[in-house]
């Protein structure tokens, strides 16, 4: 087998002396297997067979290295078969790409396909003149022009070269017209500050500064991640050539009619006089200096040997839509967003709320939402509150009445969604999307419906004692939320203190979809030292702890939550959730960072 023998050979054309299909080839098991096949007389198979042998003998880098390793563990015939199949697939793909091979009814043989490929490449190159055959030039697969175009298109950006002393725009690429809607001519020679948002001018000035008078370079220490102030005066060369820059700035773009759908209009700042819009750009690049004699003279002839320093950057448009909330948080008029702590106290109120409820945000922040709910609705809203805390789904409330500043009630309908911290898996707050429902008819039905519900549930929920009384309701209403929150917190602490069980499916229905490994809740750090045993067990532990905390339910009578109860079987394992947390982290690191090699975290490649 050529595995041992031919490491040194580079490629070579069919070497008549080296290849030998007879059994006389030393050390090769190939002929013993292949001989019977050769007698079949199948042209293609024989060809590919011979090819395989050539392949054996003409190794190169890449996958063949691995194949060499493998041959010690697998029968050679398997390897050969795989290689043959691969080659055949490649030939088929090639045939599919070549127009000359398309209309053929029957499958072409390998040699013909290859020949046609050669012809095709020749025509590709002939159609575009290429006058250079000088071998000192470095060829490239893609014409540089095209590469540049592709790059800028992918990056949605343009090249910008700006002089450092006066911020004069020396050069931009064509693509600037697509992004800023100014032509190259309009920009070249102008001062950059004419186009940058006035509040960002200082920022840009600092970036352009290349002298030591601005000792603001901060570096991050690779080992510790802490910033290090450059104590020593920075060498000029460090600042002039090669020093990297990366910053964001807002630039004007002209209000030319055109495709604006993918234009970020985050920061529509209309200044008093000009009504320009600004777009945010991420500029990355580096400083570069040229001898000034090379550039067009701009009057800088006093110093013959002065270097002109420039900032060369690519400015990319920020993809503002990619991380924005999707359609389900689509905000329409007469809607506003609020955020509450788990006990229902407002911690964030969208300014649009004011037109609906009359209160300014600061007037209701910190108060419990229950103080504004109509007493008839308290029951169902408390129920929904409980549900929201325990579910990952969006909970829709029915219509309910919200007391406005002026005493009048407005009908709202809300969508509640609890936010769970991805790391701790605990609910941190509830986001509420509130919609105004207009029409008096609703209130009538609501009153009838909710009072009935009230009577039914009054017995079952003893924690809202004084619901039916008048003024007393307002005083106790806030405590409803607190109580519901406390239920949840108790659940958490219960799960944390008692060891979790080995539930069958770690990632049950309570988990989100997606390749998530859910670390469990673990606040106390004391048991981190004791690493868990097998990671699979700890996976199930962690999954259970996570599943339990997000799906734990009291006996609220919700039928769907009984399923979760059965998941959290009170059988115990010896691992606490903290050990499980540690084990999960370790296994995460092992698989992610070192691809199977065991190692400590120091191996994490942090090329700062």
């Amino acid at each position, binding site marked *: 087998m050529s595995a041992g023998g031919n490491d040194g050979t580079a490629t070579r054309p069919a070497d*008549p002396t080296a290849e030998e299909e007879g059994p006389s080839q030393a050390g090769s098991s190939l002929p013993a297997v292949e001989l019977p096949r050769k007698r079949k007389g199948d042209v293609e198979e024989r060809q590919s067979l011979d090819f395989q042998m050539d392949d054996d003998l003409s190794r*190169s880098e890449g996958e063949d290295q691995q194949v060499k390793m493998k041959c010690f563990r697998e029968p050679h015939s398997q390897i050969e078969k795989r290689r043959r199949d691969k080659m055949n697939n490649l030939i088929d793909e090639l045939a599919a790409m070549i127009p000359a091979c398309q209309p053929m009814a029957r499958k072409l043989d*390998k040699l013909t396909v290859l020949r046609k490929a050669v012809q095709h490449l020749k025509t590709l190159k002939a159609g575009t003149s290429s006058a250079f055959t000088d071998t000192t030039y470095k060829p490239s697969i*893609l014409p540089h*022009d095209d590469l540049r175009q592709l790059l800028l298109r992918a990056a949605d950006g343009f090249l910008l070269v700006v002089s450092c002393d006066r911020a004069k725009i020396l050069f931009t690429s064509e693509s600037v017209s697509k992004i800023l809607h100014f032509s190259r001519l309009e920009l070249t020679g102008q001062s950059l500050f004419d186009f940058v948002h006035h509040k960002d001018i200082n920022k840009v000035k600092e970036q352009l500064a290349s002298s030591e008078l601005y000792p603001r370079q*901060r570096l*991050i220490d690779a080992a510790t991640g802490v910033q290090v102030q450059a104590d020593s005066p920075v060498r000029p060369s460090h600042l002039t050539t090669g020093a990297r820059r990366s910053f964001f700035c807002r630039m004007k773009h002209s209000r030319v009619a055109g495709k604006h759908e993918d234009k970020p209009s985050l920061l529509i700042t209309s200044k008093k006089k000009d009504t320009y819009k600004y777009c945010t750009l991420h500029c990355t690049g580096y400083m570069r200096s040229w001898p000034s004699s090379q550039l067009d003279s701009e009057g800088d002839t006093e110093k013959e040997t002065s270097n002109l320093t420039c900032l060369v950057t690519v400015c990319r448009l920020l993809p503002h839509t*990619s991380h924005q909330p999707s359609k389900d948080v689509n905000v329409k008029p007469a809607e506003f967003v609020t955020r509450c702590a788990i006990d229902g106290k407002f911690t964030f109120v969208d300014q649009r709320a004011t037109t609906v409820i009359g209160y300014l*945000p600061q007037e209701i922040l910190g108060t419990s939402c229950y103080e504004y709910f109509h007493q008839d609705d308290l029951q169902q809203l408390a129920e929904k509150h409980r549900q929201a805390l325990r579910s990952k789904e969006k909970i829709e409330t029915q219509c309910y009445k919200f007391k406005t500043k002026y005493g009048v009630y407005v009908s709202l309908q809300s969508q509640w969604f609890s936010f769970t911290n991805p790391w701790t898996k605990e609910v941190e707050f509830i986001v509420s999307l509130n919609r105004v429902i207009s029409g008096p008819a609703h209130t009538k039905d609501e009153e009838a419906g909710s009072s009935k519900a009230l009577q039914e549930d009054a017995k079952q929920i003893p924690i809202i004692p004084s619901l039916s009384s008048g003024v007393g309701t307002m005083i106790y209403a806030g405590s409803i939320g607190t109580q519901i929150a406390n239920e949840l917190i108790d659940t958490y602490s219960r799960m944390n203190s008692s060891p979790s069980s080995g539930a069958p499916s770690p990632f049950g229905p309570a988990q989100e979809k997606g390749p998530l490994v859910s670390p469990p809740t673990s606040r106390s750090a004391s048991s981190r030292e004791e690493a868990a045993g097998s990671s699979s067990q700890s996976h199930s532990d962690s999954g259970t702890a996570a599943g339990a905390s997000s799906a734990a339910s009291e006996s609220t009578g919700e039928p769907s939550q009984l399923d979760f109860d059965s998941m959290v079987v009170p059988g115990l394992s010896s691992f606490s959730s903290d050990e499980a947390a540690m084990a999960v982290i370790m296994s995460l690191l092992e698989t992610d960072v070192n*691809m199977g090699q065991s190692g400590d975290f120091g191996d994490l490649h942090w090329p700062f």
Partner: protein
Amino acid sequence: MTADKEKRRAISREAARRRRRVESDVFGDLSRLLPLQPSVRAHLDKPSVIRLTLSYIRTHTLLKGRTGTKTEVSHAVKYAEVKEGGEDRPECDEEKETEEVEASDESNMYLRILEGFLMVLSTEGDMIFLSDNVSKYMGLTQTELMGHNIFEFTHPCDHEEIRSNLRLTAEEVWRGAKRDFVMRIKSALTHRGRSANLKSATWKVLHCQGRAKVCVGPSSVSCLLLTCQPLPLSHTLLSTHTFTSQHSMDMRFTHCDQRVTALLGYGPEELLGRSIYDLCHTLDTSCLTKNHLNLCLKTQSVSGQYRMLVKGGGYVWVESHSAVIPSVRPSKSRPGAHQPLCILCVTYVLSGVEQPSLQLSLDQTVHRYLR
């Protein structure tokens, strides 16, 4: 009889040899037509030749569909000398050569500025084209990688996300829909930056941004054009409008540098223990969540733009680049334990304070009243 058999065998052996020679010649012809350096060409095996030919054809098909200008169409595969630093070249008689050289310099400069490489992905995940600086980031050369499928080189847990990014509807393709995601790719680079064997590869986190592209031809081909940049961030920071912070894994602040005061109004000590989710606009919760998840799973992330609330009222638009690193401070209570992880964030403030009198969150009101 045996002599006859022997003779027949010898004849068939000769025939086989001839066939092989012919085939190798054709492979040689093919590889010579590919724009590769001779040293690279010498080491190519036959599957690689086909793989690269396929890529070459596909790349050209891709570009054919563009409404290229005359200069683009007339320029073939370019041969240009690459010089470091890009200093001026002597004036050439050949105008075309100058253009080409400039183009090559420019595109190399672009690649250097971008600090990343260009990748063209088919909707099945085949890496149709990679710019040649990919070796700097992955340790594998352009010729080794082109034509292969990206799923062979990326972390299995990210495949789902990659697949969903590759899914393109016709409408999305036509308007050049954007893509922005983070994925882990194999890197055969050692710490010192040399290429090692793929078997000892580590995972490298790449931030991929780009858009869809289609070319109309005999068969419409749609693909993704992506620039792939490794995280983490650039190592130089400038002081204005940027601050760094450290967080525990649940995104609560554990440390913050002084600059945050000028930008957000909070003193660093005020932020300790507070969750970043509390300090941001509610509508950006999902953006932050996605960022957080990326951090937990892939250890590095770039958030999109989101709003951070300013003390006392209003908000600013920011973007954060973050990574998971071992915690800076030595663990006090657990000597000898594995270092706990923490999140390091560099936050760029993009805008000024918007609507400074608007109070949206609870603590904005508190600070105002306590003044």
